[in-house]
């Protein structure tokens, strides 16, 4: 049932060796355990994502100062004219 490779690719992970075996086994056990939810009758039940008391607040369109460049640079060296640099995007 559980195609680990497909899920790995979606999650940008690449497990190997013992870790892969162990995690795959764990996942199968855990997913089996989740089957207990099938017992519950959820016909006509709306999913719960949001709390009623919390309402969306609409922010006014006013500019506020953001992150100065030197803050971003604390964590990553910026290249050329302040760009973030990444390796080539397409695989050979």
């Amino acid at each position: 049932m559980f195609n680990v490779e497909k899920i790995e690719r979606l999650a940008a992970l690449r497990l190997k060796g013992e870790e892969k075996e162990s995690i795959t086994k764990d996942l199968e056990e855990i997913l089996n355990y989740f089957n207990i939810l099938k017992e519950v009758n959820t016909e006509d039940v709306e999913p719960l994502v949001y709390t009623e008391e919390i309402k969306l607040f609409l922010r006014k369109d006013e500019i506020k100062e953001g992150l100065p460049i030197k803050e971003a640079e604390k964590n990553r060296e910026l290249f050329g004219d302040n760009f973030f640099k990444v390796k080539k995007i397409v695989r050979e």
Partner: protein
Amino acid sequence: MEITELTVKEIVEKIKKKEIGVKETVLAYLKNIEDKDNNIKAFLSINNEEALIKAEELDKENEKNGQIFGIPVAIKDNINVYGTETTAGSKILKGYISPYDATVVKKIKEQNGIVIGKTNCDEFAMGSSTENSAFFNTKNPINTYYVPGGSSGGSAASVAANETAAAFGSDTGGSIREPAGFCGIVGLKPTYGRVSRYGLIAFGSSLDVIGPLAKNVEDAAILTNVIAGFDRKDETTANLPVENYTDFLKRGVKGKKLGVIKEINDFKIQDEVSITLKEAINKLEVQGCEIEEVSIPHLKYALPTYYLIAPSEASSNLSRFDGVRYGLEGIGDNLRDFYEDTRTKGFGREVKRRILIGTFALSEGYFDEYYLKASKVRRLIAMDFEKVFEKVDALILPTTATTAFKFNEKKNPLEMYMSDIFTMPMNLAGIPAISIPFGKDNKGLPIGIQIAGKWFEEGEIFQISYALEQLKES
């Protein structure tokens, strides 16, 4: 009495009366950290220089304003404190320096609290023992062979060991209450939406809440006053007024209706825990509480529901850790390889497990059966609580089914997940809950009793737990 044995309330009073100084206080706690933390290992980083500079500044002030003026606080390392290393207990964020303050940190600073250090936690708050930290284990100060609980294990241990006056952590499935219970201190999970999450590294966005860990209920109430409230930076905070929680403390429990959930008996509970719960209930009854048996019919489905929803949200929240803008940089000839290397190297095993579960639960063909189904069961659980609160004011139950366990004892993930059975239903429903220490087992390990209440009624919880706290045998 040593300064470090005093409560937040007592220290603030003494400082404001000029009986003790802020620097004196901070130095006392720093000394404790120096003496104990090589063993306890509650802290990932200690802010000594800045803390002392701030302490000196505060000592110079004539007007000593602030509910926590001069109080050293420890902050869980998944909360952004400007200029500090913020790792969330993970290798993938080792070296990451926060460029901004979380809203709660801003509020702490506004009330003149002093951040003394960042505490250890399970990686990305995923765990119940702090054993999932990428860096090291934290020990339970009560007995160092035992885990402090998790994921806010460092915060709980630091308070229990008097390394700090107070601490803050986050609770997604029990991560404040469970370690508070294991370490014999007080821990509160406020209502979802009561406290801003801006600056908290997200794990389960619809479940995460920041809350205080403290030596007693009064301190917890003071700390909650500091952090609670609507935040324009967090759309999931409620625009509701914040009460003064310390006002509720001494009102007593006469006439309060307390519910005991009958379904907790479906689970195996350590004998001493059951006995202690009964004791607590009896003592409250004597004080005038009415005890009623109530039912949460879907209680047994809370665990699988939680362990589908939290990892699903986490799998998405953790996608931003790709090595491009911050954090660990992997190696790769091309971008894909780079991503995979960064993340496979940077995340620990439990995090990888949960990312994979979550990715699976949201994936095409499985979404309805897993994520959506769990969301629907979540609604049923919340409705169970709604019905219960029509009859009672609050619920009383154990924080955990057992006291603290030893390191490496829970090897199986599902076994570890069971530590949360009595805490995570409150996260699913969003209701507030507090754990207070009430008794010990025959090994001397603390037992935590939990009081859970209605949405946005933290006052009620403080009222009842304060009363219970006074009934403890010293």
